Structures are given as C-alpha cells and as structure tokens.
C-alpha cells in the first residue's frame, strides 16, 4: 500500500546522489529489500515506473536484491535463515535470537549511462 511513497523516496535519493551528473541518464538503481520489509515488489516497480515519467530518471530500472531473514542465536551462536515464520533457533530451539537481516530497505548503487 505504501510502495508509491517508498518509490518517491527512492527517486529523491537517486536525484540527490546524481545531482553532479545531470547530463547522464540513470540506467539502473540497485536496491536491497528484506523479505520482512513489507514491500510488494510488483507495486514498487509499478510506482517507480509511474513516478519517473518526464524526469531525468525515465530510463531507469530497479534491480532488486531480496534479502533473506537471518537470525543469530544468543545461546548457541549459530546463524540461520528463517524460512517459515518461526523465530526460534532451528539448532537448539532457543527463542533468544536477534534478527540480523531481513528488514532492510536500502538503495545500494546507482548506474549511469
């Protein structure tokens, strides 16, 4: 539901970072999107494509790297990927865990022509 405002924030970051390269077209915008970041990727792409029309970004495409949800166990120290929705350590069944990835939403790289 909020992908349009997320797309707008992405565009603002790209515009700010490419201010000194205004003569070059933006081709690719790389994102890292955690699986638990509540982003519907199709909606994000749609929102981005809609908002970039008539801007210097109108050729740009999003390249999205989806990041798995990974937890670190405070008891046994093992890192594991959460595939379902159980935030327990699959090794020792402890629930003393810390999420170390999976909720990120980053612009990581911008490629210009």
């Amino acid at each position: 539901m909020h992908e349009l405002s997320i797309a707008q924030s992405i565009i603002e970051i790209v515009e700010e970072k490419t201010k000194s390269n205004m003569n070059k077209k933006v081709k690719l915008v790389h994102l890292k999107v955690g699986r638990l970041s509540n982003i519907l990727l199709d909606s994000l792409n749609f929102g981005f494509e809609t908002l970039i029309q008539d801007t210097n970004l109108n050729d740009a495409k999003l390249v999205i790297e989806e990041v798995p949800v990974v937890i670190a166990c405070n008891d046994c120290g093992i890192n594991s990927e959460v595939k379902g929705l159980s935030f327990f350590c699959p090794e020792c069944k402890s629930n003393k865990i810390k999420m170390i990835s999976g909720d990120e939403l980053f612009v990581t790289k911008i490629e210009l022509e």
Partner: protein
Amino acid sequence: MSIIQVERKVLAKNDVVANVNREVFLENKNFVINLVSSPGSGKTSLVEQTIEKCKNDFSICVIEGDVQTSLDAERIDKLGVPVANIVTNGGCHLDASLVSDAMQNLETEKADLVIIENVGNLVCPAGYDLGEDMKVVFVSVTEGDDKPLKYPAMFRNASALIINKIDLLPYLKCNIEELKKNALSINPDLKIFLTSCTTGKGIADWINWLKSNLKK
C-alpha cells in the same frame, strides 16, 4: 557507464525526523507508545479507558491518526485531555513528519504519557519510526488467531500485544492460546495483555504496566 555507490536507507529521511521527535520526547521525559492495529480492533476504546482511569494520576496527551475524519479525536477531546488530529487523506500510515507537525499543537512537555494512535493498518506502519519508545500492536479476537502469522513484520517490531474484545470469546472460534503461540513464535519478547474495553477486564494490568514505564 559510471557507478555511484550509495548504501542509503530508503526511509533515512523519515528516520532523521523520527530521531528529532525522539530527542524532544526524551527531553520531556515522555513515555511514548505507537498503537497499531487493523481498523476496528478497539484502539480508540482502549485509549478512552486508559484516559478515564489514569487522568487523575498522570498527564496524557494523544496524537490521533485518521484516514479521513476527526471522529476519534473528538472522542478523546470529550475526555478533557489534549489531542492533536492528523488526517492522512487516504495515506495508510503515519510518518515522523506528520507526528512532528502534530507535536507543535500539543504541550508534550507537560505529559507523562504520549499515545500515538496510528491509522488502522497492520502493514505499512511497521516500517515507519515515529520517535516512539515502543510499538504496541492490537488484535481483537474477532479477527482470528492467525493474525500474527499474516503480519509478521508488525509483530516483530512491537514490544507489547493487546488482545482485545475477549468478552466475545464464547461466541467465536478464535483460540486464544493459539493466538498467543503464533504471536510469540514471531516475537518471543512480546508482553501480552488480554483486555475487554466493554467489561473492563484486563485494563488494570495494562495500566499498571503503563505506569511502570513512565519516566517521571
């Protein structure tokens, strides 16, 4: 082809404003909760109950998020506590700037407890830091016991869970133990309260917990 390395959080701008809000709250010694739930789970009713039972013990102010109306804010206003209304005009979540604007209309420095009632939505508000101390997620038993599994990000990001409308349990298939188990499988640290705003059951536990978190 040239490449610009960025590594910037998409919501970095929101986080900057959220941190400014947090500093103000910290300076004021406010305890700030961000109430999140589906529409109609009883957030405003619980805010009303909290105000009625606590307004003589400590001072409260409320920031009401509403998609279209000021109906909730009017309910709070009737109880005689300061309230600022934010109408998002269709927007599905509050962001830190909206809360910052609302704070200009409230004397937050006088409050012990600041309640931010978010727009009814269990998806988008999960990602937006408003500067609060904690998110409190709300579920009513009419919504079913699988809610935590459907909205894991919100349950991960919350510190407390209120299971509301428990007076309706005899009429529903909702299994409260299953609901709790589902919530704790997503977030084992959730502090859970069972409440009914109609009968008043469980409200005292909630209020005692609020009191134990006050900073002044």
